[in-house]
Protein backbone atom coordinates (compact mmCIF):
# COMPACT_ATOMS: atom_id res chain seq x y z
CA UNK A 1 0.00 0.00 0.00
CA UNK A 2 1.60 3.28 -1.11
CA UNK A 3 1.94 6.22 1.25
CA UNK A 4 -1.13 8.37 1.64
CA UNK A 5 -1.36 11.46 -0.62
CA UNK A 6 -0.62 14.52 1.48
CA UNK A 7 -1.61 18.15 1.12
CA UNK A 8 2.10 18.87 0.38
CA UNK A 9 1.83 16.60 -2.68
CA UNK A 10 -1.19 18.57 -3.85
CA UNK A 11 0.59 21.90 -3.40
CA UNK A 12 3.52 20.61 -5.44
CA UNK A 13 1.31 19.22 -8.22
CA UNK A 14 -0.58 22.51 -8.31
CA UNK A 15 2.69 24.41 -8.76
CA UNK A 16 3.72 22.09 -11.62
CA UNK A 17 0.33 22.58 -13.25
CA UNK A 18 0.62 26.34 -12.86
CA UNK A 19 -2.61 26.65 -10.82
CA UNK A 20 -3.09 28.52 -7.56
CA UNK A 21 -5.19 26.81 -4.88
CA UNK A 22 -6.60 28.28 -1.68
CA UNK A 23 -6.39 26.24 1.58
CA UNK A 24 -9.99 25.05 1.23
CA UNK A 25 -9.24 23.72 -2.29
CA UNK A 26 -6.04 22.07 -1.11
CA UNK A 27 -8.00 20.13 1.52
CA UNK A 28 -10.73 19.26 -0.98
CA UNK A 29 -8.35 18.04 -3.70
CA UNK A 30 -6.20 16.13 -1.23
CA UNK A 31 -9.30 14.12 -0.32
CA UNK A 32 -10.60 13.78 -3.92
CA UNK A 33 -7.29 12.84 -5.55
CA UNK A 34 -6.69 10.43 -2.67
CA UNK A 35 -9.98 8.73 -3.49
CA UNK A 36 -9.04 8.48 -7.16
CA UNK A 37 -5.72 6.90 -6.28
CA UNK A 38 -7.47 4.44 -4.00
CA UNK A 39 -9.67 3.45 -6.95
CA UNK A 40 -6.64 2.96 -9.19
CA UNK A 41 -5.08 0.85 -6.48
CA UNK A 42 -8.16 -1.35 -6.59
CA UNK A 43 -7.78 -1.66 -10.39
CA UNK A 44 -4.15 -2.66 -9.99
CA UNK A 45 -5.27 -5.84 -8.25
CA UNK A 46 -6.65 -7.14 -11.57
CA UNK A 47 -4.30 -9.70 -13.11
CA UNK A 48 -3.10 -8.16 -16.42
CA UNK A 49 -0.28 -10.60 -17.13
CA UNK A 50 -0.22 -11.17 -20.88
CA UNK A 51 -2.31 -8.09 -21.67
CA UNK A 52 -0.31 -5.55 -23.70
CA UNK A 53 -0.23 -2.06 -22.14
CA UNK A 54 -2.67 0.32 -23.78
CA UNK A 55 -1.13 3.75 -23.96
CA UNK A 56 -3.39 4.85 -26.77
CA UNK A 57 -6.76 3.69 -28.10
CA UNK A 58 -6.36 5.63 -31.32
CA UNK A 59 -6.22 3.23 -34.24
CA UNK A 60 -7.96 4.96 -37.15
CA UNK A 61 -10.31 3.24 -39.56
CA UNK A 62 -9.64 -0.38 -40.44
CA UNK A 63 -6.86 -0.60 -42.99
CA UNK A 64 -6.02 3.09 -42.65
CA UNK A 65 -2.40 3.74 -41.84
CA UNK A 66 -1.40 5.37 -38.60
CA UNK A 67 0.96 7.78 -40.31
CA UNK A 68 0.93 10.20 -43.24
CA UNK A 69 3.10 10.90 -46.28
CA UNK A 70 5.44 13.91 -46.12
CA UNK A 71 3.24 16.38 -47.98
CA UNK A 72 2.84 20.07 -47.24
CA UNK A 73 -0.72 21.29 -46.81
CA UNK A 74 -1.92 24.87 -46.48
CA UNK A 75 -1.47 26.52 -43.10
CA UNK A 76 -3.93 28.95 -41.48
CA UNK A 77 -4.33 32.55 -42.62
CA UNK A 78 -2.55 34.90 -40.22
CA UNK A 79 -5.81 36.61 -39.24
CA UNK A 80 -7.26 33.25 -38.16
CA UNK A 81 -4.04 32.24 -36.43
CA UNK A 82 -4.03 35.35 -34.25
CA UNK A 83 -7.83 35.67 -33.93
CA UNK A 84 -8.02 34.32 -30.37
CA UNK A 85 -4.68 35.63 -29.15
CA UNK A 86 -5.11 37.72 -25.97
CA UNK A 87 -2.28 39.91 -27.27
CA UNK A 88 -0.58 39.96 -30.67
CA UNK A 89 1.57 42.13 -32.90
CA UNK A 90 -0.31 42.49 -36.18
CA UNK A 91 1.87 45.32 -37.49
CA UNK A 92 4.26 43.06 -39.39
CA UNK A 93 4.35 43.40 -43.21
CA UNK A 94 3.75 39.65 -43.42
CA UNK A 95 2.69 37.30 -40.67
CA UNK A 96 2.45 38.44 -37.06
CA UNK A 97 3.52 37.55 -33.52
CA UNK A 98 1.79 36.23 -30.46
CA UNK A 99 2.77 38.48 -27.57
CA UNK A 100 3.09 37.45 -23.94
CA UNK A 101 4.41 39.10 -20.76
CA UNK A 102 8.21 39.03 -20.84
CA UNK A 103 9.40 35.59 -19.72
CA UNK A 104 13.07 36.14 -18.92
CA UNK A 105 15.21 38.77 -17.20
Amino acid at each position, binding site marked *: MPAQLTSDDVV*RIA*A*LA*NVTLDPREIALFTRQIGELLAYVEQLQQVDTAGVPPT*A*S*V*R*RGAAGAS*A*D*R*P*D*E*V*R*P*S*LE*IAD*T*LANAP*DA*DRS*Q*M*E*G*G*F*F*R*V*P*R*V*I*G
Partner: protein
Amino acid sequence: MSFEAVIGLEIHAHLRTASKIFCGCSASFGAPPNTQVCPVCLGLPGALPVLNRAAVDAAVQAALALSCSVHETSVFARKNYFYPDLPKGYQISQYERPLATGGVVELGAGAAARRIGITRVHLEEDAGKSLHAGFADSDRKTYVDYNRSGVPLIEIVTEPDLRSPADAAELFARLRAILVWLGVNDGNMEEGSLRCDANVSVRPAGAPALGTKTEVKNLNSFRFLQKALEHEIARQIELVSAGRRVVQETRLFDAASGRTISMRSKEEAHDYRYFPEPDLPPLVVDAARLERIREAMPELPDARRARLAERYALSEHDAAQLTQSRAAADYFEEAIAAGAPAKLAGHWMMGELARALKEAGDDIAASRVGARALAELLALLDAGTISGSMAKTVFATMYASGRPAGEIVAAEGLAQIDDERQIVALVAEALALHADAVAQYRGGKAGAFGFLVGQVMKAARGKANPARVNALLRKALEPGP
Protein backbone atom coordinates in the same frame (compact mmCIF):
# COMPACT_ATOMS: atom_id res chain seq x y z
CA MET B 1 45.43 16.74 -7.22
CA SER B 2 44.74 16.13 -10.88
CA PHE B 3 41.18 16.01 -12.16
CA GLU B 4 39.39 14.26 -14.94
CA ALA B 5 36.39 15.66 -16.79
CA VAL B 6 33.42 13.47 -17.68
CA ILE B 7 31.31 14.75 -20.58
CA GLY B 8 28.21 13.59 -22.40
CA LEU B 9 26.39 15.37 -25.23
CA GLU B 10 22.77 15.84 -26.23
CA ILE B 11 22.37 16.77 -29.87
CA HIS B 12 19.12 18.04 -31.36
CA ALA B 13 18.92 17.75 -35.13
CA HIS B 14 16.08 18.90 -37.40
CA LEU B 15 15.10 16.25 -39.90
CA ARG B 16 14.97 17.50 -43.49
CA THR B 17 11.32 16.83 -44.25
CA ALA B 18 9.00 19.02 -46.29
CA SER B 19 6.24 19.04 -43.67
CA LYS B 20 6.20 19.04 -39.87
CA ILE B 21 6.26 15.88 -37.77
CA PHE B 22 2.57 15.78 -36.77
CA CYS B 23 0.82 18.02 -39.32
CA GLY B 24 1.04 19.17 -42.94
CA CYS B 25 2.48 22.66 -42.26
CA SER B 26 5.72 23.44 -44.07
CA ALA B 27 8.84 22.74 -41.99
CA SER B 28 10.97 25.22 -43.97
CA PHE B 29 13.04 27.90 -42.25
CA GLY B 30 12.65 31.65 -42.67
CA ALA B 31 8.95 32.18 -43.46
CA PRO B 32 7.21 35.29 -42.04
CA PRO B 33 6.25 34.67 -38.38
CA ASN B 34 3.31 32.37 -37.67
CA THR B 35 2.50 31.74 -41.35
CA GLN B 36 3.35 28.01 -41.14
CA VAL B 37 0.99 27.01 -38.37
CA CYS B 38 -2.31 25.12 -38.00
CA PRO B 39 -4.50 23.88 -35.15
CA VAL B 40 -2.14 20.91 -34.53
CA CYS B 41 1.10 22.86 -34.09
CA LEU B 42 -0.72 25.68 -32.26
CA GLY B 43 -2.12 23.15 -29.78
CA LEU B 44 -5.73 24.16 -30.33
CA PRO B 45 -8.28 21.96 -28.51
CA GLY B 46 -9.40 18.91 -30.46
CA ALA B 47 -6.53 18.91 -32.94
CA LEU B 48 -4.91 15.50 -33.35
CA PRO B 49 -1.33 14.72 -34.39
CA VAL B 50 -0.62 12.31 -37.27
CA LEU B 51 2.95 11.08 -37.65
CA ASN B 52 5.03 12.01 -40.74
CA ARG B 53 6.37 8.78 -42.26
CA ALA B 54 9.44 10.50 -43.76
CA ALA B 55 10.50 11.80 -40.35
CA VAL B 56 10.52 8.24 -39.04
CA ASP B 57 12.56 7.02 -42.03
CA ALA B 58 15.12 9.79 -41.51
CA ALA B 59 15.38 9.11 -37.78
CA VAL B 60 15.85 5.38 -38.43
CA GLN B 61 18.63 6.14 -40.93
CA ALA B 62 20.41 8.29 -38.35
CA ALA B 63 20.03 5.59 -35.70
CA LEU B 64 21.39 2.89 -38.02
CA ALA B 65 24.33 5.09 -39.02
CA LEU B 66 25.21 5.39 -35.32
CA SER B 67 25.08 1.57 -34.97
CA CYS B 68 22.02 1.71 -32.71
CA SER B 69 19.43 -1.03 -32.27
CA VAL B 70 16.19 0.27 -33.74
CA HIS B 71 13.26 -1.01 -31.70
CA GLU B 72 10.29 -2.50 -33.49
CA THR B 73 7.94 -0.66 -31.13
CA SER B 74 8.59 2.73 -29.60
CA VAL B 75 6.15 4.98 -27.77
CA PHE B 76 5.59 8.73 -27.89
CA ALA B 77 5.30 10.52 -24.57
CA ARG B 78 4.23 13.92 -23.32
CA LYS B 79 6.90 15.99 -21.63
CA ASN B 80 4.98 18.53 -19.57
CA TYR B 81 6.24 22.01 -18.82
CA PHE B 82 5.09 25.57 -19.16
CA TYR B 83 6.77 27.97 -21.52
CA PRO B 84 5.16 30.29 -24.06
CA ASP B 85 6.91 28.65 -27.03
CA LEU B 86 5.18 25.37 -26.18
CA PRO B 87 1.55 25.99 -27.05
CA LYS B 88 0.13 22.67 -25.80
CA GLY B 89 1.86 22.83 -22.41
CA TYR B 90 3.73 19.66 -23.37
CA GLN B 91 6.18 18.53 -25.99
CA ILE B 92 5.57 15.26 -27.79
CA SER B 93 8.77 13.27 -27.37
CA GLN B 94 9.79 9.71 -26.56
CA TYR B 95 10.84 8.69 -23.09
CA GLU B 96 10.66 5.16 -21.67
CA ARG B 97 10.61 3.48 -25.06
CA PRO B 98 12.74 5.48 -27.51
CA LEU B 99 13.14 4.68 -31.20
CA ALA B 100 16.68 3.35 -30.84
CA THR B 101 19.35 2.64 -28.21
CA GLY B 102 22.87 1.30 -27.78
CA GLY B 103 24.99 2.78 -30.58
CA VAL B 104 28.63 3.76 -30.87
CA VAL B 105 30.83 6.29 -32.67
CA GLU B 106 34.59 5.85 -32.84
CA LEU B 107 36.92 8.84 -32.60
CA GLY B 108 40.51 8.62 -33.78
CA ALA B 109 42.11 5.46 -35.12
CA GLY B 110 44.36 2.61 -34.07
CA ALA B 111 45.70 2.63 -30.51
CA ALA B 112 44.37 6.15 -29.89
CA ALA B 113 40.78 5.23 -30.87
CA ARG B 114 38.05 6.19 -28.38
CA ARG B 115 34.66 4.49 -28.53
CA ILE B 116 31.86 6.87 -27.55
CA GLY B 117 28.59 5.15 -26.67
CA ILE B 118 25.31 6.45 -28.06
CA THR B 119 22.70 5.99 -25.34
CA ARG B 120 19.63 6.66 -27.45
CA VAL B 121 18.11 8.30 -30.51
CA HIS B 122 14.52 9.42 -30.20
CA LEU B 123 11.99 11.42 -32.19
CA GLU B 124 10.33 14.58 -30.96
CA GLU B 125 8.81 17.86 -32.09
CA ASP B 126 10.59 21.20 -31.85
CA ALA B 127 9.06 24.09 -29.89
CA GLY B 128 8.33 27.56 -31.24
CA LYS B 129 10.72 30.46 -30.98
CA SER B 130 10.59 33.17 -28.30
CA LEU B 131 12.01 36.58 -29.15
CA HIS B 132 13.10 38.55 -26.11
CA ALA B 133 14.70 41.52 -27.86
CA GLY B 134 14.37 43.77 -30.88
CA PHE B 135 10.89 45.22 -30.35
CA ALA B 136 9.87 48.59 -28.91
CA ASP B 137 8.24 46.88 -25.91
CA SER B 138 10.81 44.12 -25.49
CA ASP B 139 11.44 45.28 -21.92
CA ARG B 140 7.93 44.09 -21.06
CA LYS B 141 6.93 41.60 -23.76
CA THR B 142 8.14 38.39 -25.34
CA TYR B 143 7.17 37.76 -28.97
CA VAL B 144 6.42 34.21 -30.07
CA ASP B 145 6.65 32.64 -33.52
CA TYR B 146 5.28 29.09 -33.84
CA ASN B 147 6.63 28.31 -37.31
CA ARG B 148 9.22 26.03 -35.69
CA SER B 149 6.64 24.37 -33.44
CA GLY B 150 6.31 20.81 -34.71
CA VAL B 151 9.40 20.70 -36.91
CA PRO B 152 10.70 17.11 -36.62
CA LEU B 153 13.76 16.54 -34.45
CA ILE B 154 15.90 13.68 -33.36
CA GLU B 155 17.64 13.88 -30.03
CA ILE B 156 20.91 11.96 -29.86
CA VAL B 157 22.17 11.31 -26.33
CA THR B 158 25.71 10.05 -25.80
CA GLU B 159 27.12 8.12 -22.87
CA PRO B 160 29.39 10.13 -20.53
CA ASP B 161 32.38 8.65 -22.37
CA LEU B 162 34.09 11.89 -23.37
CA ARG B 163 37.07 13.08 -21.31
CA SER B 164 38.12 16.33 -23.00
CA PRO B 165 36.52 19.41 -24.57
CA ALA B 166 38.46 18.70 -27.78
CA ASP B 167 36.96 15.20 -28.02
CA ALA B 168 33.50 16.64 -27.36
CA ALA B 169 33.94 19.10 -30.22
CA GLU B 170 35.26 16.33 -32.45
CA LEU B 171 32.29 14.10 -31.66
CA PHE B 172 29.83 16.92 -32.38
CA ALA B 173 31.60 17.51 -35.71
CA ARG B 174 31.50 13.79 -36.50
CA LEU B 175 27.80 13.54 -35.71
CA ARG B 176 27.11 16.57 -37.89
CA ALA B 177 29.13 15.07 -40.75
CA ILE B 178 27.23 11.77 -40.51
CA LEU B 179 23.79 13.44 -40.43
CA VAL B 180 24.63 15.74 -43.35
CA TRP B 181 26.15 12.82 -45.27
CA LEU B 182 22.91 10.86 -44.84
CA GLY B 183 20.98 13.91 -46.00
CA VAL B 184 18.72 13.79 -42.93
CA ASN B 185 19.95 17.16 -41.55
CA ASP B 186 21.25 20.30 -43.28
CA GLY B 187 23.98 20.92 -40.67
CA ASN B 188 23.04 24.60 -40.40
CA MET B 189 23.92 25.63 -36.86
CA GLU B 190 23.23 29.35 -37.38
CA GLU B 191 19.62 28.59 -38.25
CA GLY B 192 19.40 26.22 -35.28
CA SER B 193 18.80 23.06 -37.26
CA LEU B 194 21.61 21.43 -35.29
CA ARG B 195 22.04 22.23 -31.59
CA CYS B 196 24.15 20.83 -28.78
CA ASP B 197 23.90 20.73 -24.98
CA ALA B 198 26.63 19.20 -22.83
CA ASN B 199 26.57 17.50 -19.42
CA VAL B 200 29.86 17.84 -17.60
CA SER B 201 31.31 16.93 -14.23
CA VAL B 202 34.81 16.58 -12.77
CA ARG B 203 36.32 14.01 -10.41
CA PRO B 204 39.79 13.23 -9.07
CA ALA B 205 41.63 11.32 -11.81
CA GLY B 206 40.92 7.62 -11.48
CA ALA B 207 38.01 8.01 -9.05
CA PRO B 208 35.19 5.57 -9.84
CA ALA B 209 32.26 7.77 -8.74
CA LEU B 210 30.97 10.63 -10.86
CA GLY B 211 30.99 14.21 -9.58
CA THR B 212 27.92 16.44 -9.64
CA LYS B 213 27.19 17.48 -13.21
CA THR B 214 25.98 20.69 -14.76
CA GLU B 215 24.22 21.03 -18.09
CA VAL B 216 25.59 23.69 -20.45
CA LYS B 217 23.24 24.99 -23.13
CA ASN B 218 23.47 27.22 -26.18
CA LEU B 219 26.50 25.66 -27.83
CA ASN B 220 25.79 26.30 -31.47
CA SER B 221 29.31 25.87 -32.86
CA PHE B 222 32.15 23.41 -32.38
CA ARG B 223 34.34 26.20 -31.04
CA PHE B 224 31.71 27.39 -28.55
CA LEU B 225 31.24 23.83 -27.31
CA GLN B 226 34.96 23.46 -26.69
CA LYS B 227 35.35 26.90 -25.08
CA ALA B 228 32.28 26.48 -22.88
CA LEU B 229 33.49 23.09 -21.63
CA GLU B 230 37.00 24.39 -20.99
CA HIS B 231 35.57 27.20 -18.91
CA GLU B 232 33.06 25.01 -17.10
CA ILE B 233 35.64 22.33 -16.24
CA ALA B 234 38.03 24.97 -14.87
CA ARG B 235 35.18 26.47 -12.82
CA GLN B 236 34.22 23.11 -11.34
CA ILE B 237 37.83 22.16 -10.54
CA GLU B 238 38.27 25.48 -8.76
CA LEU B 239 35.13 24.87 -6.68
CA VAL B 240 36.10 21.32 -5.74
CA SER B 241 39.71 22.26 -4.99
CA ALA B 242 38.46 24.98 -2.63
CA GLY B 243 36.44 22.36 -0.79
CA ARG B 244 33.15 23.69 -2.11
CA ARG B 245 30.56 21.73 -4.03
CA VAL B 246 29.23 21.91 -7.58
CA VAL B 247 25.52 22.68 -7.75
CA GLN B 248 23.53 20.58 -10.19
CA GLU B 249 22.01 23.17 -12.53
CA THR B 250 21.62 24.36 -16.08
CA ARG B 251 24.15 26.93 -17.29
CA LEU B 252 24.15 29.07 -20.37
CA PHE B 253 27.29 29.74 -22.40
CA ASP B 254 27.87 33.43 -23.03
CA ALA B 255 30.00 33.65 -26.16
CA ALA B 256 30.94 37.29 -25.59
CA SER B 257 32.63 36.66 -22.21
CA GLY B 258 33.57 33.00 -22.88
CA ARG B 259 31.94 32.06 -19.54
CA THR B 260 29.05 29.90 -18.44
CA ILE B 261 26.30 31.57 -16.43
CA SER B 262 23.82 29.93 -14.08
CA MET B 263 20.22 29.92 -15.31
CA ARG B 264 18.77 28.56 -12.09
CA SER B 265 15.08 28.03 -12.26
CA LYS B 266 12.66 26.51 -9.78
CA GLU B 267 13.45 22.91 -8.89
CA GLU B 268 10.08 21.58 -10.02
CA ALA B 269 10.74 22.81 -13.55
CA HIS B 270 12.68 19.57 -14.00
CA ASP B 271 9.75 17.35 -13.13
CA TYR B 272 8.31 16.79 -16.58
CA ARG B 273 5.71 14.20 -15.51
CA TYR B 274 6.18 12.17 -18.69
CA PHE B 275 3.34 9.89 -19.67
CA PRO B 276 2.49 7.97 -22.88
CA GLU B 277 0.90 10.20 -25.55
CA PRO B 278 -2.72 8.98 -25.83
CA ASP B 279 -3.22 10.78 -29.18
CA LEU B 280 -0.63 8.66 -31.01
CA PRO B 281 -0.50 4.88 -31.38
CA PRO B 282 2.84 3.19 -30.63
CA LEU B 283 5.32 3.63 -33.50
CA VAL B 284 5.96 0.30 -35.18
CA VAL B 285 8.97 -0.13 -37.48
CA ASP B 286 8.80 -3.75 -38.57
CA ALA B 287 11.69 -5.79 -39.94
CA ALA B 288 10.64 -5.28 -43.58
CA ARG B 289 10.51 -1.50 -43.23
CA LEU B 290 13.81 -1.46 -41.35
CA GLU B 291 15.40 -3.41 -44.20
CA ARG B 292 13.97 -1.05 -46.84
CA ILE B 293 15.41 1.93 -44.99
CA ARG B 294 18.77 0.23 -44.56
CA GLU B 295 18.96 -0.57 -48.25
CA ALA B 296 18.15 3.00 -49.26
CA MET B 297 21.00 4.38 -47.14
CA PRO B 298 24.16 5.68 -48.80
CA GLU B 299 27.50 4.05 -48.02
CA LEU B 300 28.58 5.62 -44.71
CA PRO B 301 31.62 7.89 -44.33
CA ASP B 302 33.89 5.36 -42.57
CA ALA B 303 33.09 2.58 -45.00
CA ARG B 304 33.57 4.81 -48.00
CA ARG B 305 36.86 6.19 -46.69
CA ALA B 306 38.17 2.68 -46.17
CA ARG B 307 36.98 1.52 -49.60
CA LEU B 308 38.48 4.51 -51.46
CA ALA B 309 41.77 4.20 -49.54
CA GLU B 310 42.10 0.57 -50.49
CA ARG B 311 40.83 0.69 -54.03
CA TYR B 312 42.85 3.73 -55.10
CA ALA B 313 45.85 3.25 -52.78
CA LEU B 314 45.27 6.58 -51.04
CA SER B 315 47.02 7.67 -47.87
CA GLU B 316 44.88 7.85 -44.72
CA HIS B 317 45.05 11.64 -44.86
CA ASP B 318 44.01 11.85 -48.51
CA ALA B 319 41.18 9.35 -48.07
CA ALA B 320 39.86 11.37 -45.10
CA GLN B 321 40.08 14.62 -47.06
CA LEU B 322 38.30 13.17 -50.08
CA THR B 323 35.45 11.81 -47.96
CA GLN B 324 34.83 14.93 -45.89
CA SER B 325 31.45 15.11 -47.57
CA ARG B 326 29.40 12.78 -49.71
CA ALA B 327 29.56 15.37 -52.51
CA ALA B 328 33.40 15.32 -52.41
CA ALA B 329 33.54 11.52 -52.50
CA ASP B 330 31.02 11.47 -55.36
CA TYR B 331 33.09 14.05 -57.27
CA PHE B 332 36.25 11.99 -56.81
CA GLU B 333 34.67 8.77 -58.04
CA GLU B 334 32.92 10.48 -60.92
CA ALA B 335 36.24 11.98 -62.08
CA ILE B 336 37.85 8.55 -61.96
CA ALA B 337 34.93 7.00 -63.83
CA ALA B 338 35.47 9.67 -66.50
CA GLY B 339 39.07 8.53 -66.92
CA ALA B 340 41.07 10.64 -64.48
CA PRO B 341 44.01 8.86 -62.80
CA ALA B 342 43.07 8.46 -59.10
CA LYS B 343 46.23 9.96 -57.60
CA LEU B 344 46.12 12.97 -59.89
CA ALA B 345 42.38 13.52 -59.29
CA GLY B 346 42.86 13.42 -55.52
CA HIS B 347 45.85 15.75 -55.71
CA TRP B 348 43.96 18.28 -57.83
CA MET B 349 40.81 18.14 -55.71
CA MET B 350 42.79 18.92 -52.57
CA GLY B 351 44.88 21.56 -54.36
CA GLU B 352 43.59 23.68 -57.23
CA LEU B 353 39.92 22.72 -56.90
CA ALA B 354 39.79 23.26 -53.13
CA ARG B 355 41.48 26.64 -53.56
CA ALA B 356 39.10 27.74 -56.33
CA LEU B 357 36.02 26.58 -54.38
CA LYS B 358 37.18 28.42 -51.28
CA GLU B 359 37.92 31.60 -53.21
CA ALA B 360 34.54 31.56 -54.94
CA GLY B 361 32.71 30.48 -51.77
CA ASP B 362 31.25 27.53 -53.69
CA ASP B 363 30.31 24.13 -52.37
CA ILE B 364 31.85 21.21 -54.24
CA ALA B 365 28.37 20.03 -55.22
CA ALA B 366 28.00 23.35 -57.11
CA SER B 367 31.57 23.46 -58.46
CA ARG B 368 31.88 25.41 -61.72
CA VAL B 369 34.32 22.74 -62.87
CA GLY B 370 32.49 19.45 -62.66
CA ALA B 371 34.11 16.07 -62.13
CA ARG B 372 33.98 15.18 -65.84
CA ALA B 373 35.46 18.54 -66.86
CA LEU B 374 38.33 18.07 -64.40
CA ALA B 375 38.86 14.54 -65.73
CA GLU B 376 39.27 15.95 -69.26
CA LEU B 377 41.89 18.43 -68.06
CA LEU B 378 43.77 15.74 -66.13
CA ALA B 379 43.75 13.47 -69.21
CA LEU B 380 45.48 16.23 -71.19
CA LEU B 381 48.01 16.64 -68.39
CA ASP B 382 48.55 12.91 -68.01
CA ALA B 383 49.12 12.48 -71.78
CA GLY B 384 51.73 15.25 -71.74
CA THR B 385 49.69 17.49 -74.04
CA ILE B 386 50.03 20.28 -71.49
CA SER B 387 52.48 20.83 -68.65
CA GLY B 388 51.58 20.97 -64.97
CA SER B 389 51.89 24.74 -64.80
CA MET B 390 49.80 25.17 -67.95
CA ALA B 391 47.17 22.86 -66.51
CA LYS B 392 46.84 25.25 -63.57
CA THR B 393 46.33 28.19 -65.94
CA VAL B 394 43.79 26.23 -67.96
CA PHE B 395 41.99 25.22 -64.77
CA ALA B 396 41.69 28.84 -63.68
CA THR B 397 40.20 29.72 -67.08
CA MET B 398 37.84 26.75 -66.84
CA TYR B 399 36.66 27.86 -63.39
CA ALA B 400 36.11 31.43 -64.54
CA SER B 401 34.49 30.66 -67.89
CA GLY B 402 32.97 27.20 -67.59
CA ARG B 403 34.60 26.25 -70.93
CA PRO B 404 36.02 22.74 -71.35
CA ALA B 405 39.78 22.14 -71.09
CA GLY B 406 40.30 20.91 -74.67
CA GLU B 407 38.69 24.02 -76.11
CA ILE B 408 40.82 26.37 -74.01
CA VAL B 409 44.04 24.56 -74.87
CA ALA B 410 43.25 24.64 -78.60
CA ALA B 411 42.03 28.24 -78.65
CA GLU B 412 44.96 29.64 -76.71
CA GLY B 413 47.63 27.54 -78.37
CA LEU B 414 48.68 26.13 -75.05
CA ALA B 415 49.36 22.61 -76.22
CA GLN B 416 52.78 21.46 -75.11
CA ILE B 417 55.57 21.00 -77.62
CA ASP B 418 56.24 17.31 -77.33
CA ASP B 419 57.51 16.65 -80.84
CA GLU B 420 61.04 15.25 -80.69
CA ARG B 421 62.26 16.92 -83.88
CA GLN B 422 61.04 20.34 -82.76
CA ILE B 423 62.73 19.98 -79.38
CA VAL B 424 65.98 18.68 -80.90
CA ALA B 425 66.06 21.82 -83.07
CA LEU B 426 65.47 24.05 -80.03
CA VAL B 427 68.23 22.24 -78.11
CA ALA B 428 70.69 22.61 -81.00
CA GLU B 429 69.90 26.31 -81.21
CA ALA B 430 70.51 26.80 -77.48
CA LEU B 431 73.82 24.89 -77.57
CA ALA B 432 75.03 27.01 -80.50
CA LEU B 433 74.11 30.28 -78.76
CA HIS B 434 75.68 29.33 -75.43
CA ALA B 435 78.95 27.59 -76.24
CA ASP B 436 80.45 28.94 -73.02
CA ALA B 437 77.84 27.19 -70.88
CA VAL B 438 78.37 24.00 -72.83
CA ALA B 439 82.08 24.23 -72.13
CA GLN B 440 81.42 24.84 -68.41
CA TYR B 441 79.15 21.82 -68.24
CA ARG B 442 81.68 19.61 -69.97
CA GLY B 443 84.28 21.02 -67.59
CA GLY B 444 82.29 19.52 -64.70
CA LYS B 445 80.07 22.44 -63.72
CA ALA B 446 76.74 20.63 -63.37
CA GLY B 447 74.83 23.85 -62.68
CA ALA B 448 75.26 24.90 -66.30
CA PHE B 449 72.79 22.16 -67.26
CA GLY B 450 69.93 23.97 -65.53
CA PHE B 451 70.85 27.17 -67.32
CA LEU B 452 70.69 25.40 -70.70
CA VAL B 453 67.30 23.82 -69.84
CA GLY B 454 66.07 27.31 -69.03
CA GLN B 455 67.30 28.63 -72.39
CA VAL B 456 65.49 25.87 -74.31
CA MET B 457 62.26 26.49 -72.36
CA LYS B 458 62.59 30.21 -72.99
CA ALA B 459 62.94 29.61 -76.73
CA ALA B 460 59.87 27.34 -76.58
CA ARG B 461 57.98 30.05 -74.64
CA GLY B 462 57.49 27.58 -71.80
CA LYS B 463 55.55 25.12 -73.91
CA ALA B 464 58.14 22.36 -74.37
CA ASN B 465 57.65 19.18 -72.38
CA PRO B 466 60.25 19.62 -69.60
CA ALA B 467 60.97 15.90 -69.22
CA ARG B 468 61.68 15.57 -72.93
CA VAL B 469 63.83 18.71 -72.97
CA ASN B 470 65.89 17.26 -70.13
CA ALA B 471 66.41 13.96 -71.88
CA LEU B 472 67.23 15.42 -75.29
CA LEU B 473 69.57 18.06 -73.87
CA ARG B 474 71.46 15.45 -71.86
CA LYS B 475 71.78 13.33 -74.97
CA ALA B 476 73.05 16.29 -77.04
CA LEU B 477 75.67 17.13 -74.40
CA GLU B 478 77.08 13.62 -74.29
CA PRO B 479 80.60 13.52 -75.70
CA GLY B 480 80.39 12.75 -79.44
CA PRO B 481 81.61 9.46 -80.86
